[in-house]
């Protein structure tokens, strides 16, 4: 049974859902950040799956841009976590309820 793009879409949907659950359920900010990375990966899988099916490399170019943005987001996000940890000694998202601290 040949592998159709729908299989890839189902896989990326499942990965997307796991990411969303991770963001919603966990309280540790770092785990939340990692779940966001999972979501971005799910998007990438979709992009590459369609680019392979349509034999058009544009999808992969977009995937590279997604990776670049993910890198930037991770760097700044972790900077915020470090700054927050230095003030509040905890990485529990519930305690992050102030816009400025």
């Amino acid at each position, binding site marked *: 049974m040949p592998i159709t793009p729908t*299989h890839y879409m189902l896989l990326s949907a499942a990965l997307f859902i796991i990411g969303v659950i991770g963001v919603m359920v966990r309280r540790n900010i*770092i785990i939340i950040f990692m779940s966001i990375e*999972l979501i971005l990966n799910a998007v990438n899988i979709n992009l*590459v799956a369609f680019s392979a099916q349509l034999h058009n490399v544009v999808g992969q170019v977009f995937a*590279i841009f997604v990776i670049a943005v993910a890198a930037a987001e991770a760097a700044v996000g972790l*900077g915020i976590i470090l700054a927050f*940890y230095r003030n509040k000694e905890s*990485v529990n998202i519930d305690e992050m309820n102030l816009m400025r601290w």
Partner: protein
Amino acid sequence: MAEAIAFYVIAAFILGFAVLVVTTKDTVHSVLFLVLDFLFVAALYVLLSAPFLAVIQILVYAGGIVVLYLFVVMLVNLKRAPEAHEDPHRLTKLGFGLAGAVLIELGAILVSGYMKAPAAASAAPAVLPVSGNTEQVGWLLYTSYLIPFEIASMLLLVAMIGAIVLAKREL
């Protein structure tokens, strides 16, 4: 046939590690599972005949970003685990419910899409003068997608400066 087996094996690993990332208590273990997850996603890209992206995924994601996470996890080693105390007004059940709803909705779209006849073949892609996956990606990146490329580099520069300003103790 071999490709189908490979796909299912890799997909199983990806989803398995993703679940482990989200559920393990120890943060370092979940970072490790994340690395393994990204390596298998890279394997998936190789299956989708996108070797350049697979290598970039290992280099940037597994080799760079997750190392960043590992550093932060070690610097932010906690004396009391965040999940230690139960937070009363946490709507975990609602979270699961919402996620389930989204899953059902996505499944419905996919399944219905699968029933209908495949969409009309879209316009044939522009034939690129170069062959080979890396060359084509490179060609597109520097011709039709040059502006987004420059913007992305600006974005990375801004992110670097932002991270340094945030993380450094005294400037």
